[in-house]
């Protein structure tokens, strides 16, 4: 049991803006309606010829262009998908927070506008990379010849494309777009990254190092080597005959996750700053917990030791008990292992009440956005609080007997919703939990 970190006199942190770019669309309301309607964003892989891959489907962002979202496209020419997604999500969030108006009035202190993102590595430039590798291959010695490789790479690789692959490039582009000069971080804890980013952004604000933080994340791994990597790990569903039902968290016949892509951005600020500018407050970030499984890089701890610790820490941080949680946005990846371990952790924490707390996974519809999964799920929590309605877990026709919680199967549900808990776990054992609450709590 960790000592409680809850302290009544620390600054309260609120969400004032949200935006996303997802496989179900690129604006808050239509995507939210489709999630509540239980639609799937899964379709075939079309970006490369995956016809012989074990997995030939994914949840991809369609018909998206970042250019309409930015002030000066020249600043961002040549960006890779993570940055492209992040720019659109951030522009939506910025506008929904009303920061464009505050800015026009000259009321924003740029040194106190920070960034904390959880973005993935950029997509490798496959053709030049593979071409250089093959050109450099010395079959006789089973190695790549440095001279030949360099000649091919130098002739085919584009400097901008290579530099843009650094995981902090979305951060750099958002900083330019919004003239953000405060504390600036990118973390990459695999599938937990953007949850961790929101949690740590909250801590930066609580400490008084910024007034406003742009946080969230962006990621795609829908490219040949990304799919290869997950296929080799046998982490992806191979239900090629029925892609839209492949992401089936907590179902007995689940066979892996479905790769998604996209971005989500939230604007966080201190309650004081939000109130001073009369911002509409969407929710409060009440608690944050982070832990490590410290078990194996290949497997989760079977009893969900790390997830349990993260949830407990978030509750301690919020000064709440499990009885205060009305809804859980689960990590729920649709892998055999995650769904078991997460269910066990929830049961250990919530005890008798576990099966009474609705706990759904929107990965059943959006697929798994990897680094961006957490923020998109956190935004869904904010909207669930607003509409007093939680999204469903679709494709749960054949529940796993060991997964016996209330996963809100098939259809969205109206409910009284004050406090949400949102979980995400990174491959390798880094776990994060956020607690979001309606603001004001009694409305």
């Amino acid at each position, binding site marked *: 049991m*960790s000592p409680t*970190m809850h302290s009544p006199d620390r600054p309260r942190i609120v969400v004032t803006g949200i935006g996303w770019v997802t496989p179900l669309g690129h604006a808050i309301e239509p995507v939210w309606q489709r999630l509540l309607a239980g639609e799937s964003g899964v379709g075939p892989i079309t970006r*490369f010829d995956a*016809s*012989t*891959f074990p997995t030939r489907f994914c949840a991809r962002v369609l018909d998206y262009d970042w250019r309409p979202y930015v002030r000066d496209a020249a*600043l961002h020419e040549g960006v890779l998908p993570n940055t492209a997604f992040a720019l659109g999500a951030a522009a939506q969030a910025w506008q929904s927070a009303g920061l464009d108006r505050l800015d026009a009035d000259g009321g924003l202190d740029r040194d106190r506008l*920070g*960034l904390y993102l959880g973005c993935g590595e950029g997509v490798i430039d496959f053709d030049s990379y*593979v*071409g250089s*590798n093959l050109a*450099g291959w010395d*079959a006789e010695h089973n190695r*790549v010849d*440095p*001279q030949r*490789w*360099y000649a091919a*790479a*130098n002739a085919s*690789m584009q*400097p901008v494309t*290579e*530099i843009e692959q*650094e*995981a*902090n*490039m979305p*951060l*750099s582009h958002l*900083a*330019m777009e919004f003239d*953000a*000069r405060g*504390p*600036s971080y*990118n*973390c*990459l*804890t*695999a599938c937990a990254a953007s949850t961790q980013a929101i949690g*740590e952004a909250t*801590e930066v604000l609580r*400490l008084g*190092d910024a007034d406003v933080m742009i946080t969230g994340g962006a990621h795609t791994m829908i490219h040949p080597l990304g799919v290869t*990597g*997950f296929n*080799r*790990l*046998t982490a992806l569903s191979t239900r090629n005959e029925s892609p839209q039902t492949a992401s089936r968290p907590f179902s007995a016949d689940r066979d892996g996750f479905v790769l998604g892509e996209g971005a989500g951005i939230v604007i966080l600020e201190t309650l004081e700053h939000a109130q001073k500018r009369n911002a509409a407050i969407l929710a409060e970030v009440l608690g944050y917990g982070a*832990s*490590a*499984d*410290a078990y194996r*890089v*290949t497997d989760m701890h079977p009893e969900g030791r790390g997830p349990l610790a993260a949830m407990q820490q978030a509750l301690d941080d919020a000064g709440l008990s499990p009885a205060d949680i009305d809804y859980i946005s689960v990590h729920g990846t649709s892998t055999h292992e995650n769904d078991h371990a997460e269910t066990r952790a929830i049961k250990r924490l919530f005890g008798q009440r576990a099966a009474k707390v609705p706990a759904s996974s929107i990965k059943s519809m959006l697929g798994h956005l990897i680094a961006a999964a957490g923020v998109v799920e956190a935004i869904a929590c904010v909207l669930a609080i607003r509409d007093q309605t939680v999204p469903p877990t679709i494709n749960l026709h054949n529940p796993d007997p060991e997964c016996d919680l209330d996963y809100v199967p098939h259809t969205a549900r109206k409910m009284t919703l004050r406090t949400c808990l949102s979980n995400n776990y990174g*491959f*390798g054992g*880094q776990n994060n939990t956020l607690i979001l609450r309606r603001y004001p709590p009694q409305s």
Partner: protein
Amino acid sequence: MTRSVVITGLGPVCGLGIGIEPTWQGAVEGRSAIGPCRAFDASAYPCPFAAELPEDFRGRDFVPRSYRKATKIMARDIEMAVAAADLAARDARLTTRATAEQGDAQTSYPPHRMGAQIGAGLIAADLDELTAALDKARDERGGFDMKKWGAEGMHELTPLWLLKYLPNMLACHVTIVHDTQGPSNTITCTESSAGLSVGEARRVIGRGAAEVCFCGGLESRINLMSLMRQTFTGRYIQVEPGATTDPATLVRPFDRQAAGSVPGEGGAILILEAEEAFKQRRDADPEARAYARISGFAASQTVHPATRNRTPDPEGLAIAAAARRAIAQAGITPDQIDLIVAFGCGHPDYDRPEAAALHSVFGPAIGRIRICSTKPMVGLLGAGAGGLDLCIAARAIAQQKLPAVLNCDDPLDGLDAATGPARDADIRNALVLSTGLGGQNTACVLQRFDH
């Protein structure tokens, strides 16, 4: 008010040596680890020089026997992190699952009170391994065939292939080896990664979420792909083919003749500890000691659209802002800083803005403050840069000795950055700076810890 945090263990891994003793000795002697690239024939690259780890470095020597199997899925960056963590924990006399000896009743702290915030770079796949598989997917004309890749080629890769290259694996393996179950993060902001990770570890401990953290960063760019990508950033020095230069003199931070940096590999893990918890531990183990207190930390973002944040703005505005905030947080005035371990990468587009920022923060006092850079010794370490620099600053302040300065015969105006030997000095506070490609900056103030 958050809790006070001290640095109690240093685990540098760099060209100067493996561990704090050889590294510090190298910094005092003013050695340079820069030489012709040994890992592969880099003669085609504009900069064929590198600062590599000592040849006898073997990552697996630092991995507990029961975990050695896992070295098969550790990229060099990960091996370096595991080694650095082991060195740091032992330097701190911290008992963890890995450092415990027979007879140790228990670990220094319970697992959930230990954290790990470790910066990482963009880890490159081993090209020999990958290309052996790609080679199985050639079409009749020798080009790449995606259909054959999906059907045959990809299955040549080891199932755990992806796990070797995920940047969070540095932290994950360290958490497993030392059984740290508290908060763990992976920060990926190029050369600022380690500085930001140390700042975050301080926040984690400060708010009470852990008593002790492994933090810092490591990266190796000494492979074909990473070196190519970094070459494209334009920060490495270009050497004319056939030119006869002493590699040790190539990197010239704050010198008017500075022309670029040289790639290095390595970085460091530091042990950060709540001061109150450390004092209790010291009561039981009088040999435990703190190098310094972290009295100030600030992070900032450069906005310089003219170079798309690839270099700082000429005035170094955000660098100055971070330094000012860190110094103010430390409760001191700039003239109470006695040592600056600057980013000083030896490229004029970085050095000059950094110098401008120092002038703006310190005013005329800057001429009386010794400025050091480790880059002529260990090269540009990527995600590890700030970690190594913090180790040097922490040891300097504990030892009350300024490290040697190399290759600055004609310093930029008004800076005490000229070539010179190590020397004893009264160091009350030290400032450590880092600046990454993409514009993230950190400033950290270390304060002498009087035992």
